[in-house]
């Protein structure tokens, strides 16, 4: 088989991807389960470091879970109705609000965190609690929920669906919870996975907002890298991967557009 120039370019690209994307992950995992990194893998394989991470940092894992779930709750409660209103209103103000809500994506997390600290850092109780971090996370993840739900709403003629429901006697709340919400389930699900994943991994904002008592998983990771032996930092990475990979897989699985089944319908129909 003759190999063209394109083949070698593609091969080089693939190797580069492997070198920078896959190899470091594997190295990290290896380091996390090696008895002594300086002697390499031949010094033996152990889960000791992973358990040590659990002893030292399990608090951060629980906090991260708590914050990401709370963040999810907030983004659903705020984001879904907001998306609904924005999809209904076509005016300029609606578009401005949409842009405004998307703004946190364009601003560095550190800047958002700093702004939050300047504005509300004075409220001691609030500043000390994990809800302070939650606010930052909600600001940062809300646009993702909003976009995901808006995409579904604008791809279905939900206005006519609502009119249909109204003609059958359903009031606003019955229409909203019985028709609108169930029909943007796929958007809410995709948005939710995105929000949880992002909230779990968020470092920029969180690093600025955290206190010694409110460390999340990525902040703990930074802490481990800075102050512990390399094996522990790497074992922490392993823990992080174990938590985040199922979410990413779910995101891939549910993020796919639904299979077009309309074609099947015509065959089934008589």
């Amino acid at each position, binding site marked *: 088989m003759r190999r063209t120039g394109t083949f070698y370019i593609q091969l080089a690209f693939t190797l580069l991807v492997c070198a920078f994307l896959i190899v470091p992950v594997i190295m990290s995992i290896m380091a996390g389960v090696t008895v002594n990194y300086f002697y390499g893998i031949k010094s033996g394989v152990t889960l000791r470091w992973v358990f040590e991470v659990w002893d030292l940092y399990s608090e951060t894992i629980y906090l991260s879970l708590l914050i990401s779930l709370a963040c999810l709750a907030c983004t659903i409660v705020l984001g879904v109705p907001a998306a609904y209103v924005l999809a209904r209103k076509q005016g300029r103000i609606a578009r401005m609000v949409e842009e405004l809500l998307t703004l946190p994506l364009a601003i560095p997390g550190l800047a958002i965190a700093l702004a939050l600290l300047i504005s509300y850092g004075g409220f001691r109780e609030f500043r000390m609690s994990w809800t302070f971090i939650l606010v930052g996370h909600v600001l940062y993840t809300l646009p993702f929920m909003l976009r995901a739900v808006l995409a579904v709403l604008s791809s*279905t*003629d939900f206005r*006519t*669906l609502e*009119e*249909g*429901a*109204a*003609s*059958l*006697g*359903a*009031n606003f709340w*019955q229409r909203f919870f*019985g*028709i609108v919400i*169930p*029909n943007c*389930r796929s958007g809410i699900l995709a948005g939710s996975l995105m929000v949880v994943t992002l909230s779990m991994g968020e470092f920029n904002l969180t690093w600025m907002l955290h206190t010694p008592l409110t460390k999340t998983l990525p902040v703990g990771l930074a802490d481990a890298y800075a102050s512990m032996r390399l094996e522990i930092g790497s074992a922490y990475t392993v823990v992080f991967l174990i938590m985040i990979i199922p979410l990413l897989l779910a995101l891939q699985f549910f993020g796919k557009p639904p299979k077009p*089944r*309309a074609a*099947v*319908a*015509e065959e*089934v*129909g*008589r």
Partner: protein
Amino acid sequence: MTSPSRTPVRLLDCAKTFPDGTRALEPTNLEIEGGATVVLLGPSGCGKTTTLRIIAGLESPDSGGRILFDDEEVTDQPIEKRNVGMVFQSYALFPNMNVEQNVAYGLKVRKTPPEELATRVGEMLDMMDIRELKDRRIEQLSGGQRQRVALARAIAVRPRILLLDEPLTALDAILRERLRVEIDALLRGLGITTVYVTHDQSEAMALGDRIVVMSHGRVTQIGTPREIYYNPANRFVADFIGTMNRITGTARDGVLTTRAGRIPWEGGDSGEIEVLFRPENASIADLDQAHLRGRIATSFFLGDRTRLMVEGIGAEPLVVETSERREFRAGEEIGLVIAPNSLLTLKD
């Protein structure tokens, strides 16, 4: 259905101006007899859908307009309070529910007791012949099946008025024809006051007890299908419904003299006039006995009949149809006899 709803509907001075200033409907008065099927007919943008949506309660008329169901004023009631059944062009079936749940939705929202709900849904499924589809998801249905479900869903709540917005437009020709027959039988059977919107004149003729022809936000004529067809009120109606031929000539002493011959004239007008007639009122005759003589421009063989375009008589070629089996050639000279009592004159 035990007690068919024969609610009359009245629109008084209903106009609709959209926020951008477009006048979708000029001030309109409309009375719909209880139990009748009224078809709102007209080209797109004529205000027919706006009128339907005003009756439904999906749009509110400009201030001053009033809507009455029976003698009850419903102007300020939203659609969910009006107890209407509505069928949309896009069906608007709920994708998150199966066929049975769609049909049951209105009853569920009304908190109908479970046993009654089950019976009523069963009746609807049988009536529309969709029982075997009851567990299907909406995306698994064909267009015709969706329309049946939409009808069943709208009727299940026993609405006061049934509103149909171009329900057959999204279907292919054969299915449209079949469902039209079914809908006709259904409406006759139900005896419920029905408002049906369409731009298809043959649909309007077949289904309507009365047809309301609309154009540019105004009602141009209201009448039975026959009245509309035989006595169109103006040129717009004449042209929109069926085909109209027009010729000009001079009427005097019971004879209309045109450039292509003379026709007996029974009308009262005299002088230079324009007369109109339908294709089926002209027949082919021998040249020496014909009222009018012209030349065949084109002929279309349609199977059961042949449509001829005849030039040299009116300003536009005349449309004539014949069931003669012979072949007609372009350029051939042809004689026409027009039934004198079919000639129409229209002021505007």
